[in-house]
């Protein structure tokens, strides 16, 4: 087997994510474990950095949703290999987030991509899926003690649920940060609805959440 340095292997993992090669990512992550690279480093400096690069390619309009989906598949394939080996005390969570597509809406591609980006950024995620009843968001917030709740909607009909659920969330935990997104949403509408932040796409969502958390600290 060719000798490879830690830096080289991490770069290869990074590249395999960017090239959305699921098989290669799996192999490289297994190799990382074999040669003793700390799994947490392989996640943060291999997989997560790879997704950062994917995000940039999306912003430059080089990559679109199909590429994002496949890159995310590659990343998750790698995570499946590495995560079980991460020691609990090693894992520093960047934050806790509950996310879901609001009641009445089943369009979840956007939310899935947001999840990928938060995963890559090291957040603890509670993914409620799609068509999430309003009360479930509140329940999940209570159960997880999350810092942020992210809600998405694609339809003008379903986005009408947002002010309601935001009110319920704030009543449960006044300092919770609520982030919204989805095609019919805008910064203005998000404000009107009582949300703390709005993200125009999956790539910017993590940064918006980070900034809001920092502001609140």
């Amino acid at each position: 087997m060719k000798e490879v340095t830690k830096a080289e292997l991490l770069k290869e993992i990074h590249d395999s994510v960017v090239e959305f090669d699921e098989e290669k990512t799996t192999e490289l992550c297994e190799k990382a474990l074999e040669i003793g690279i700390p799994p947490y480093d392989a996640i943060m400096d291999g997989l997560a950095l790879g997704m950062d690069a994917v995000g940039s390619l999306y912003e430059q309009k080089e990559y679109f949703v199909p590429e994002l989906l496949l890159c995310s598949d590659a990343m998750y394939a790698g995570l499946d290999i590495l995560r079980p080996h991460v020691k609990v005390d090693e894992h520093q969570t960047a934050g806790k987030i509950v996310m879901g597509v609001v009641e009445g809406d089943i369009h979840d591609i956007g939310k899935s991509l947001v999840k990928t980006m938060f995963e890559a950024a090291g957040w603890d995620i509670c993914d409620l899926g799609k068509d999430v009843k309003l009360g479930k968001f509140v329940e999940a917030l209570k159960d997880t003690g999350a810092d942020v709740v992210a809600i998405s909607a694609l339809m003008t009909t379903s986005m009408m649920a947002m002010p309601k659920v935001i009110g319920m969330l704030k009543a449960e935990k006044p300092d919770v940060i609520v982030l919204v997104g989805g095609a019919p949403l805008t910064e203005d509408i998000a404000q009107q609805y009582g949300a703390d932040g709005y993200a125009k796409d999956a790539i910017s969502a993590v940064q918006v959440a980070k900034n809001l958390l920092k502001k609140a600290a």
Partner: protein
Amino acid sequence: MHLRQDRLTASERMDALFTYQKPDRVPLGAMSTGFNTRNAGHTVADAYEDPEKSYSDMQWTTEQYGWDPIPQYAGHTVLGAWDFGGDVRMPKGEFEGALVVTEKPVNSEDDVAKLELPDPATVGRIPLAMRFSKLQFENNLPVYFFSRSPFTMAANICGIDLFLRWTMKKPKLCEALLDISLKHIINALTLWLETFGTDRVFVWMSSPSESNQLISPRTFKKFALPYHEAYHQRLRELGVQRFGQHICGEQNLNLPLFAESPPWPHPSVLSFGHEVDLEAAADFFPKDIIFGNIEPAVIQTGTPEQVYELCRVAIEKGKKAPGGFILGPGCGMPVNAPSANVYAMTKAVHDFGFYE
């Protein structure tokens, strides 16, 4: 304030547009279904499952707001998920405004080969759409045949996330789905043409899955555009006379590809979302009737003044479109739009939309 009086009927107005003549005023389209049934005290589900209610609510609402019947449909005629053996349910509850796919016909690669062409006379909601079209026919309205594009229908059959993955990894599967989608659309359309005659059928299509928020122009060129071309080739062979397409969402990167050689007859109606500037649309498509493009989220959550102003600007730009212009929402009329906001569009047409 008095509204100015129209000098043409809706039908005369549309005939003028389709012969490149200036009508009395900018027509006002609505792309509205659930809003109509709610306006008349019925449910959103009625818009999809009760053609008679949907039809009469649509006519009353059209009269109330002074809309022109472009387009008028009660939901899609052909549906990928439903027609090919999946399942859908009606919208329910406070926050649903459209049909919901509950089971997709294709969930894996193996399922693609098992797909069969459905019977266009009996499958899905085609029989309901036929009842609706008969009412249009009997009342001297254009008979609308409404489908998604082959690309959007193909994605609907297996779910958009799987379809997009296959565009990268298994293009042959995509082609198989695209082929069968196109065939089914044409079969159903043929039924419409045979029932109502080519001179009465107005073919309408929407293509939301081709948005650049989902796919690159490369993917559009490879997978979507050839099927638009094939589709229009068939329409020409069948003798279809009037066509409209709702080019849904952010599709700015696709427009130059369409514009290189537009596959549709001229003029056709091209409807755009708020993401596409109307002047840019008119530049790309000088021989076609531009339709749009008031942002639905503003119609739903904005003030009447905001909607009115958006319409004023749209009318100002649209009036310069060499192929003609119709004012309308940038996508389906939001079901929960406050009535005053919808009326603001009517008011704007009557204040700014007349051609002197």
